[in-house]
């Protein structure tokens, strides 16, 4: 869950760092670069060029520090974004709904409903076409039942607890067939 978001900025950072390392490796391995100092040095035997070289070396150090700062900011920004997303889910009551046998899930806002019956209506609109007789959730003769994963990660039967308790703990919904529900998850 938490790992899904950082890989992307890390990839961005890694590519940048890799590019830098690659450049350094090239400069180290090239024999022509090795011959250039010998060629340039006799042309400028003065003391001043030596001093300027020292200054430039200091500049290189600054470059490294700046790049590190940039990388840190990118990572922090990404982490912040992820936290924002999670806060959104809890705050506005959107949870994911999947139905056994279907690839694509849906999202419903449990805070838009005041009871199990209106939630059942919305799920009927979303998934009802998958069955000839519809879902008919919470009805005795229905072949489907609604289960939810609570904040502790346990799967429970929807409808067992009062609606207000349900909306506070529900993290995810799943529409399953009754005979499948007997099987352990």
């Amino acid at each position, binding site marked *: 869950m938490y790992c899904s978001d950082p890989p992307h900025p890390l990839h961005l950072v890694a590519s940048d760092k890799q590019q830098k390392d690659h450049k350094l490796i090239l400069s180290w391995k090239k024999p022509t670069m090795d011959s250039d100092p010998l060629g340039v040095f006799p042309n400028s035997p003065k003391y001043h060029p030596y001093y300027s070289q020292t200054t430039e070396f200091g*500049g*290189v150090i600054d470059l490294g520090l700046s790049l590190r700062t940039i990388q840190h900011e990118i990572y922090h920004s990404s982490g912040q974004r992820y936290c924002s997303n999670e806060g959104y889910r809890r705050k506005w009551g959107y949870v994911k709904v999947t139905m056994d046998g279907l690839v694509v899930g849906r999202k419903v806002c449990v805070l838009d409903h005041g009871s199990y019956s209106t939630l059942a209506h919305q799920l009927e609109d979303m998934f009802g076409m998958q069955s000839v007789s519809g879902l008919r959730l919470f009805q005795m003769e229905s072949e489907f039942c609604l289960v939810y994963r609570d904040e502790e990660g346990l799967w429970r039967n929807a409808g067992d607890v009062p609606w207000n308790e349900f909306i506070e703990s529900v993290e995810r919904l799943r529409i399953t067939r009754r005979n499948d529900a007997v099987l352990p998850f």
Partner: protein
Amino acid sequence: MNSFEPQSQDSLQRRFHQDNSTTQQPRDTTTPFIPKPASKNHNNSNSSSGAAGRSFQGFGLNVEDDLVSSVVPPVTVVLEGRSICQRISLDKHGSYQSLASALRQMFVDGADSTDDLDLSNAIPGHLIAYEDMENDLLLAGDLTWKDFVRVAKRIRILPVKGNTRQVKRNE
């Protein structure tokens, strides 16, 4: 001599770069060095990737919102059965209808733009779904547009028949 050698190479390389841009001269103070890496990185990033360039620009401006928005990349659009993907910038669209129109133009030959479009009929016989940060596949359209832009990592276009799954997945 060994310790002197790499130093000489680094300084020579940097000096070569400075010789190319003759307008700049080395200074003793450290403050002027800050703009140099910014411009240098900008040049590099322009040649390598646009996203990196935008992120560095954002950092240079010191505007946090710009930095956040510049980090958001375009998302990949995958049409089931095709091996070549498309890319789309969701922040350049303002609504699901705008997205539906763009997808229609991408994948439907001879598409007329006068239709009453939405996600359900943008591409006939197909569903518009997206993968979120937890790699779940969800139908596009349930969230508000602004929140969809924030959570969608990839857009996947599936044939309606392909929505049925034979093997059950354990969660």
